């Protein structure tokens, strides 16, 4: 049984359809990268899984259970944590307080302050700095650490690389294998193909709310993904 299963999910912002009958599966322990251009429906997909948006049709099953009637703030207790687009750090709280708020649901597991500071050493030095005074990279690391503090079974990462310098993105992506090694299933949404291919076991490419390519990462070339990404030709 897959940990996460989406069946024919439609989602829309008012009149604007963002997802068209989307199917998606993530096995426990796997890292899936969902790639696609702006407006492909990647963030909508994550919001729908996290319960921030509600699908207009189709089903979202987590660990075999239909989660349609589970509110967003209750999905954290089930083990779904979203690192939102734009990071949304609590600006008046320190790094450490941000992380502690992440543990609010008190799910047991391997992640605590020490483990997060281990995975993101730059946060340990900044633990007493408030969110408003962090650089983009520090904010992103804090946002990921904050989500990990809930000990999720499924970690949803939205556009980790957005607006960050490449060297900072590299630092953050280097922590992902550590996260996967602790048994956390990761669904990462990315515009940056290189990063997505480097961390993912499997890759799914969206174009205008539909899946155009889905395959194990090792079987894919950059060119194949790029073609699907821009919708240049029929996916192989």
């Amino acid at each position, binding site marked *: 049984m897959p940990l996460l299963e989406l069946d024919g999910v439609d989602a829309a912002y008012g009149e604007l359809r963002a997802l068209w009958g989307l199917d998606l599966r993530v096995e426990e322990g796997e890292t899936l990268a969902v790639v696609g251009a702006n407006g492909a429906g990647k963030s909508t997909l994550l919001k729908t899984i*996290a319960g*921030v948006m509600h699908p207009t049709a189709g089903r979202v099953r987590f660990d075999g259970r239909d989660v349609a009637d589970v509110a*967003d*703030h*209750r999905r*954290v*207790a089930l083990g779904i*944590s*979203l690192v*939102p687009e734009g990071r*949304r*750090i*609590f*600006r*008046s*709280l320190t790094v450490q*307080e*941000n992380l*502690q*708020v*992440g*543990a*609010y*649901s008190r799910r047991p597991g391997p992640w605590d302050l020490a483990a997060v500071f281990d995975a993101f050493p730059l946060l340990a030095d900044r633990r007493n700095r*408030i*969110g*408003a005074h962090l650089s983009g990279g520090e904010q992103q690391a804090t946002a990921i650490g*904050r*989500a990990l503090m*809930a000990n999720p079974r499924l970690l949803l990462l939205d556009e980790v690389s957005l607006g960050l310098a490449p060297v900072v993105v590299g630092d953050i992506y280097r922590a992902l294998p550590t996260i996967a090694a602790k048994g956390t299933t990761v669904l990462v949404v990315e515009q940056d193909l290189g990063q997505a291919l480097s961390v993912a076991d499997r890759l799914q490419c969206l174009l205008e709310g539909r899946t155009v390519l889905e395959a194990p990462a090792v079987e894919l070339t950059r060119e194949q993904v790029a073609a699907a990404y821009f919708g240049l030709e029929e996916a192989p």
Partner: protein
Amino acid sequence: MTWVNAVVQGLLLGGQYALLACGLSLVFGVMRIVNLAHGALAVTAAYLTLWLSQRTSLPLVVCLVASVLVFAGVGYLLQRGLLNRALRGGELAPLLVTFGLAVIVVNLLQEIATANSRSISIGGLATSSTRIVDGLSIGVFSLLTLVVAVALIGLIQLFLSRTAVGRAMRATSDDPGAARLMGIDDRHMYGLATAIAVGSVAAAGAFLGMSTQFTPGYGDLVLIFAFEAVIIGGLGSLWGTLLGGLVLGVAQTVGAQVEPAYGILFGHVVFLAVLALKPSGLMPRTVTA
């Protein structure tokens, strides 16, 4: 010595203002709601404490604590049932809702308790005082009010900075949507914040009722002083509110020392001066979310 006395009495009076204002400050700090029913709630709590102490043989302090607990519950329900809905209607909606609530509460009080002025009797405590030096005495009850105000603000601040729920409340204040992603129910957090605020205003109302005569409409006057304390101190900062209350109290007593009729006016002038010279208040929050 008369001037020293004026300042000391002002600080003691400021304790009462700070006690009144801290709930207002908390509700604004967490939810950006300006609660215009704050004064009316204080007076209602004074009536409840009075009623409890007359109808039961319980000690006054027990009546006060009971009233605080009842009002904390009322605050929670008020937030969950009314203000959370109003918040969805934009910034102006909660303001109008609390204004309407204040009108309803004052009229209900007139209907039930009549417009006669009342006070809560505390016996000898009302007049007992300690002489520090010649020409300077401190009223035991005003000192008690100041101590309660400082303790209450200290406790709320401790709760906000050191407990998991307090951190969650500050996080919700920064970004309710992101707080939900952490498993925090923002509506519940808002409910708790208003419960604490309305509980504190119940205590303030009871202290007010013990120190002076009150009528159903007395809350309006009280509301102005509480607002001035919050603005002078800086919006959303609890220690700032304490400072604001003290500054306002001192301004009023020193003003009254200059010319007895000018006490309240001096308070307003200091308030306006702060607004003009330092609009963010004396102790503004360093980060605005």
